[in-house]
């Protein structure tokens, strides 16, 4: 039987995460650890213990900002940032309700905007995010001020060869 640990290691395809000896350098340097339900090194231990549900339902995997401080400083080269990417992918594939819903909604809005025009149009991306998240009112004043200053424009150039962009989305769809 495949263990959770093996699954994560296979997907990561680098240094096995059990090389971690829990020096906690990752957690000490993590800028977002204060807001996470489990510290980054604890997630490694939980994977080893087979605590699949707890890990995939954790806030940690969604709050990781991918700053890569952890992997840069890890004495054993465990790629914790990549591990978080893998855990998010698994949570999405298994349709686990994300603990931090709006973080995933943001990523969905961002990627669907690329799929539409090949490039991000910021007002459209933010509108897509607001529709998905239901968070209609935050930052409205800021958005208006940026619009008045000419920082954001309602229309921006798209990629012409959208066929190639759509092909990429189609071929990488899971």
């Amino acid at each position, binding site marked *: 039987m495949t263990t959770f640990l093996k699954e994560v290691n296979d997907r990561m395809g680098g240094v096995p995460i059990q090389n971690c000896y829990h020096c906690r350098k990752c957690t000490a340097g993590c800028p977002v650890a204060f807001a996470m339900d489990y510290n980054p090194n604890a997630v490694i231990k939980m994977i080893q213990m087979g605590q699949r549900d707890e890990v995939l339902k954790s806030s940690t995997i969604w709050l990781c900002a991918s700053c890569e*401080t952890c992997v840069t400083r890890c004495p054993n080269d465990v790629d914790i940032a990549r591990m978080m*990417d893998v855990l998010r992918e698994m949570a999405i594939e298994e349709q686990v309700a994300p603990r931090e819903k709006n973080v995933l909604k943001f990523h969905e809005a961002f990627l669907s905007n690329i799929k539409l025009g090949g490039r*991000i149009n910021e007002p459209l991306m933010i509108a897509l995010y607001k529709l998905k998240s239901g968070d209609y009112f935050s930052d409205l004043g800021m958005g208006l*001020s940026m619009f008045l200053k000419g920082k954001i424009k309602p229309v*921006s150039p798209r990629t012409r060869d959208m066929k190639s962009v759509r092909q990429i989305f189609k*071929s990488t769809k899971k």
Partner: protein
Amino acid sequence: MKVSYYPGCSLHATGREYDESVKAVSGALGIELDELDDWSCCGASSAHMTNFKLSVALPARDIIAAEKRGLDVMVPCAACFNRFKSAQHHLKTNDELRGEIEEMIGASYEGTLNVRNPIDIIYTDIGRDRLRSLVTKKLEGLKPVSYYGCLLLRPPEVCGFDDYENPIMLDGLMDSLGAESRPWSYKTDCCGGSLTLGKTEIVVRLVDKLMTMAREAGANCLVTACPVCFANLDTRASKDTVIPAFYFTELIALALGLEGTDSWFRRHNVDPRPLLQSVGLL
């Protein structure tokens, strides 16, 4: 020198001042920019956080197009720079993935492209002596802290420029302009990046800490090369901690007496003009 230019999405929107100041500074320093034709988005954090293959394939489309031109590509946005470098790393080390992506895009990946950030091009190729010789208005009284953030430097074996714990190129450039860059320990700390919409309160906390530490270091502004960092510094700091932020190219343009600076500064959320007036630079 001539390079291909990949602005990326931010530089055509909220990062307009970065695009316009990179172009102005490049012109003055004799760097000819040739924008990559019909480029598409690099996928940024959202692609690699949710779909690994997509996160390599999106920049690969642009990288393959740039390879055909035989020029280095300048990528000013730290996020795009990181995604380009990371895609190159995976295409180089994973043959199976490379095959799949070449088939998807319908062209082969050669691995010949040099992806470069303007900090590196100006520091290494143009040089600080040349920069200093072109200064018409020394930035005396300006005390910036250099803020690199994450994506230009980490992971170091992928990004491959400047020191990843204590980078010094931006400080060197600022000092060449006559500014007095202040040492601090937060050069490479994270601003919270793409959490800015989904988890705003985390970004506010991280940015407030950066602002507080910058003040403690004796700085009166921050200088950055990342449109995500800039947007967070410029819009998320609490009123009692905030000091202005600049793109490093805006400050080069100011010191070189180039056109356009006023129109860029006007668009900042935190107006830097009172600071510049107070030290006699406007």
